């Protein structure tokens, strides 16, 4: 599983990254987590609102910080 966290490094992006790390740890899944902070790389992925969460190439959350429970649901394929 590849998880990308998109955001230019503001506090909300950091909070989303922390929540993702916690969700991955709680689920015990193996995931490659990449933080994408370059604005051009973010726009290239079609994301206009940050922070954003992409899982296996699919945009799941954009423009807000998802909480741990929501991220776990996403990672389990429920969203």
């Amino acid at each position, binding site marked *: 599983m590849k998880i990308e966290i998109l*955001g*230019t*490094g*503001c*506090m*909300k*992006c950091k*909070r989303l990254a*922390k*929540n993702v790390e*916690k969700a991955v740890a709680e689920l015990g899944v193996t995931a490659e987590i990449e933080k994408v902070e370059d*604005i051009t790389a973010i*726009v290239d992925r079609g994301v*206009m*609102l*940050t*922070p954003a969460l992409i899982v296996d190439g699919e945009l799941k959350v*954009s*423009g*807000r*910080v*998802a*909480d*741990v*429970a*929501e991220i776990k649901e996403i990672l389990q394929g429920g969203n």
Partner: protein
Amino acid sequence: MADQPTCTCGQNEKKRIIFPCAGQANTGQIANLAAVELTEEGFGSTACVALLATGAEGVVKNAKNADEVVVIDGCPMSCAKKIAEAQGIPADQHLVVTDLGVAKGPSKAYTDDDIETVVEAAWEGRGKTENKSAPEEKKPGNGNCGCGCGGKC
């Protein structure tokens, strides 16, 4: 020089109102400071629980219009939660500082780590009492992101 990209972070964030108990013990003060930090980070807007207790129309209306009501109590007395409920405002997320591993008193002292513990718990949604659907996604707008970046993100 090209225009800077519009700050768009956090535009789909829920509209949250935060009521810290602001009690006199260290844990009450931590609750208050955590609410201030959460406001600065763009999580929501802190409001006065003492004003809420008076039944002030404006704050009651704001709370009822919020997507999520977040109550931060210092200890299991849960005074802020009881005040909110007395005004017909149930908490969507209720955090109790002592439940997060911070001991109440006898000292009034606290650390930045104590505050961060509460702030982190709120962002994680650890005090959620029910699941609400995510807010409607918005399109990029006027750059009033409220994320605390000062328009630089």
